[in-house]
C-alpha cells in the first residue's frame, strides 16, 4: 500500500517533492540510523580516552552475541518467506533448545566442570545435535498443530494460534525448570580471555559462538541455494500455487522449512546456554523479539539479511548495554524496529513484500 503509486508523477511536481524526501529517508535513513550512533560514540571515545578500544570491544562482543541472534533470525525469515507468517513461538523453541542442551549435557551425559577437555568438547557436540533435532521436531509439530489446520483462513487466525503456542511453550519452560533463572555450569570458562588484539578481548565464549554459527550459516546458505529442497523452498516462497503446479510437494517443503528453522534455533539455544551460563523461560520471548527485529532489519524473507540483521542487532544491544544501561536496551531495539517499519519495511537487503510497504 504505497500512497506514492497513486500520485501522478509528471503532472504534479509539487506533490512529488515530499515523495523524493521520503524515498531518500527510506533508502539511506536506516543506514544513517545504524551508523550515526557508532560515529558519535567513536568521537566521544576519542575525546575522552584517545583510542577506540571501548567501542571496538562493544562491537566485537556485539558481533559475537549477534551470531546467536542471527541463528534465531534465520528461523523467522525462512518461515516468513515461505508462508508469510510471523512464527512467534520460534523464540520459545530457542528457549527449549537451551533447556534441552543444558539438561542433556549435565543430567544425561553427566558432564561437569571436572570432565576432561575432550569429554566436554564431545559432550557439547552431542548435545548440539540433540538440541537441534529436538527443536526441529518441536517446530514441525507447531506447524502441524497450529498452522496447518488454518491454512487459507484469514491472516489473523494463524497469528493468534502462534501467540497461543508461544504461551503454551513458555509454560512448558516454567514446568520444566521453574520460573526463575537457572545457572548452567560454566563448562567452557566463557569469560576467559584467549587473545587480545588491538585491545579487543577475545573470550572463549566468542570462539564457541563463531565456531558453531559460521559453519551452520555457511551450510544453510549453501543448502538453500544449491540443494533440491532448498530450490523447492525458494520456489514455494515465490509462489506456492505455481510451485505446486510444477510438481513440488508444498506440504513437505513447508515442513522442511520449519525443521531447518528449528535446527538453527536449537543450535542457538546451546550456544546461549554456554555463553550466558544462565537460562530461564523468558529468554525465548526476549531473544525471539530481538531476532525478529534482526530479521526485519535485514529484510524478512531474506536469509543473508537475517544473518546481517542479527549481527547488527547484537552490536546495537551490546553498545546500548554498555553505554546507556541494559534496562533501556529493549526500548532502543524496539524503537529501531518501529522506525524501520515506518521508513523501510523491506529492510536492508529485502525486496518489497506483499504485506508491508
Amino acid at each position: 500500500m504505497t500512497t506514492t503509486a497513486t500520485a501522478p508523477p509528471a503532472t504534479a511536481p509539487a506533490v512529488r517533492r515530499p515523495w523524493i524526501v521520503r524515498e531518500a529517508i527510506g533508502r539511506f535513513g536506516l543506514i544513517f540510523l545504524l551508523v550515526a550512533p557508532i560515529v558519535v560514540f567513536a568521537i566521544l571515545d576519542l575525546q575522552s580516552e584517545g583510542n577506540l578500544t571501548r567501542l571496538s570491544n562493544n562491537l566485537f562482543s556485539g558481533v559475537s552475541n549477534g551470531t546467536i541472534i542471527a541463528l534465531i533470525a534465520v528461523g523467522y525469515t525462512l518461515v516468513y518467506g515461505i508462508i508469510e507468517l510471523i512464527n512467534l513461538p520460534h523464540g520459545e523453541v530457542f528457549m527449549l533448545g537451551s533447556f534441552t542442551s543444558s539438561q542433556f549435557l549435565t543430567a544425561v551425559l553427566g558432564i561437569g566442570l571436572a570432565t576432561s577437555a575432550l569429554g566436554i568438547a564431545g559432550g557439547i557436540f552431542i548435545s548440539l545435535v540433540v538440541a537441534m533435532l529436538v527443536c526441529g521436531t518441536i517446530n514441525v509439530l507447531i506447524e502441524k498443530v497450529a498452522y496447518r489446520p488454518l491454512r487459507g483462513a484469514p491472516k489473523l487466525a494463524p497469528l493468534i494460534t502462534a501467540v497461543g503456542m508461544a504461551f503454551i511453550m513458555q509454560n512448558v519452560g516454567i514446568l520444566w525448570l521453574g520460573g526463575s533463572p537457572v545457572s548452567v555450569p560454566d563448562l567452557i570458562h566463557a569469560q576467559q580471555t584467549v587473545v587480545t588484539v588491538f585491545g579487543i578481548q577475545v573470550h572463549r565464549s566468542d570462539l564457541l559462538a563463531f565456531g558453531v554459527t559460521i559453519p551452520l550459516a555457511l551450510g544453510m546458505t549453501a543448502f538453500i541455494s544449491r540443494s533440491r529442497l532448498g530450490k523447492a523452498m525458494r520456489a514455494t516462497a515465490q509462489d506456492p500455487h505455481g510451485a505446486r503446479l510444477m510438481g513440488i510437494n508444498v506440504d513437505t517443503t513447508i515442513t522442511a522449512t520449519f525443521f531447518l528453522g528449528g535446527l538453527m534455533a536449537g543450535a542457538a539455544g546451546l550456544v546461549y546456554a554456554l555463553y550466558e551460563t544462565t537460562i530461564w523461560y523468558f529468554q525465548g520471548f526476549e531473544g525471539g523479539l530481538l531476532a525478529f527485529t534482526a530479521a526485519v532489519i535485514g529484510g524478512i524473507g531474506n536469509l543473508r539479511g537475517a544473518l546481517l540483521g542479527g549481527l547488527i542487532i547484537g552490536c546495537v544491544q551490546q553498545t546500548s548495554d554498555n553505554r546507556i544501561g541494559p534496562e533501556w536496551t529493549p526500548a532502543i531495539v524496539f524503537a529501531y524496529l518501529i522506525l524501520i517499519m515506518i521508513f523501510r519495511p523491506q529492510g536492508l537487503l529485502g525486496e518489497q513484500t506483499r504485506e508491508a510497504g
Partner: protein
Amino acid sequence: MKTIGRLRGRLPAWSPRAVAGLVIVAAILLPFTQPEANSFMNNCVLALAYVVMALGLNTVVGFAGLLDLGYVAFFAIGAYTTGWFSSGFYTNLHIHIGVSGYLTALPGIHLNWLLVVIAAAIICAIAGIVIGLPTLRLRGDYIAVVTLAFGEIIRVFAINGHSIIIPSWVPLFGGEPLTNGRQGITPIDQLQLPGLKPFDQLHLRPWYWTALGLALLVLFASLRLRDSRLGRAWVAIREDEVAAVSTGVPLVRTKLSSYAIGAAMGGMSGAFLGAFLNTVNAEQFTFSFSIYILAMIILGGLGSIWGVVLGAIALTFLNYYLIPDVFNSLPSTFGLGVNLTDLSYGIFGFILVLMMILRPEGLLPERRHQEELAEGIGETEAALVEERR
C-alpha cells in the same frame, strides 16, 4: 447454532432486547444478593472492568481487524493517570479538586475520579493515535509487531520511570519522577465521584455500580458504533482494505478513530483498575496482559459485542476464581508439584489455539465474521483443485 437461529426466527423481534434488558436489571440488582464485601463481589468488579477493556480491544481487533498486541499500553497509561492525579505520589504538590473528607488533608494531587477517568480517556485516545500512526501503511502481522513493540517500550518506561525526571521547564511537575517503577505508586485514593463520599474497600457495592456504569456506557457506545457509518467503515477495511478505499472509505481517519476509541475505553478501565487494585506498578503491564484480553475477545467471538462481554466475564472468573480456588489442587492430585496459577497464561494460550482450530468464530459469533471464516478455510485447496482442472 442452528437451533438458536431457528429460535430467533420464531420469537418476536423485541425478544433480544428484552433479554438484554433483563440481564442488565439482574446485573444492577446482583449486589443485594451478596454481602457488602466478599471475593465473589471482588471478582464481579474485576470482571466488569475487564468487560470494558475487552470491548475496547474489540473495537480495534474485532471491528477494524487491526491486530493490536500492545493493548496493555492503554491499561498502563490509564492506570498511571489515576496514579498521578489521585495519590500522594507528587508529595510536593497540593492540588485538591472535587474531593472531600480525609483526602483534602493529604499532600499530592487529588482529583475527583470523574475528572481522572475523562483525563485517562483523552490521554489514551491521543496515545492510541500516536501508536496507530506508524501502522497506517502496514497490514496484518506487521501491525501486530509494531503495537507489541510499543507496548514493550511503554513497559520499559514504566519500569525505569523512577529515574526519568520530568524537565524543570514543565510547569508544576518539573523535577519530579515519571513513575515509581517496580515499587509502584501506592496507595491510590479511594474512588470518589461528584456528590458522593469516597468509597472504601470494605463496601464493594459502590465500586460494583461504578464499574457496571462504565461497562454499560462502553457497551452502549460499542453497539451504536457498530451500526454507525464509522462502524461499517471499520468492517469494510477489515474485510478488504483495497476495496474499502476504492469505494471512498477514508482509510487514515477510519483506522485512527478505531485506535483512539479502543484506547480510550482501555484507558477508562485502566483508570478504574488503578484505583480498585490500589497500586500502579510497572510489573502489571506485561505482554501477557495484552494476550489475556485478546483471549477474552477470541473466546467470545471477534467483533461480537455480547460474545466479548461473555468472554471477558468467563476468563475473569477462570483466572480469579476457578484457577486459584477450585482447580489449584488438581495438579497435586495427579502427583505433579506445580502451582496451577503459574500456568494460567499457558491455559489462555491453550484456549487461543483450541478456539482458533475448533471454533474460530467464538462462543457467540458475529454473523458476518462467521461466514468469512467458514468460507476462508479450505479456500486455497479448493482453488488449487480448480486450477488443476
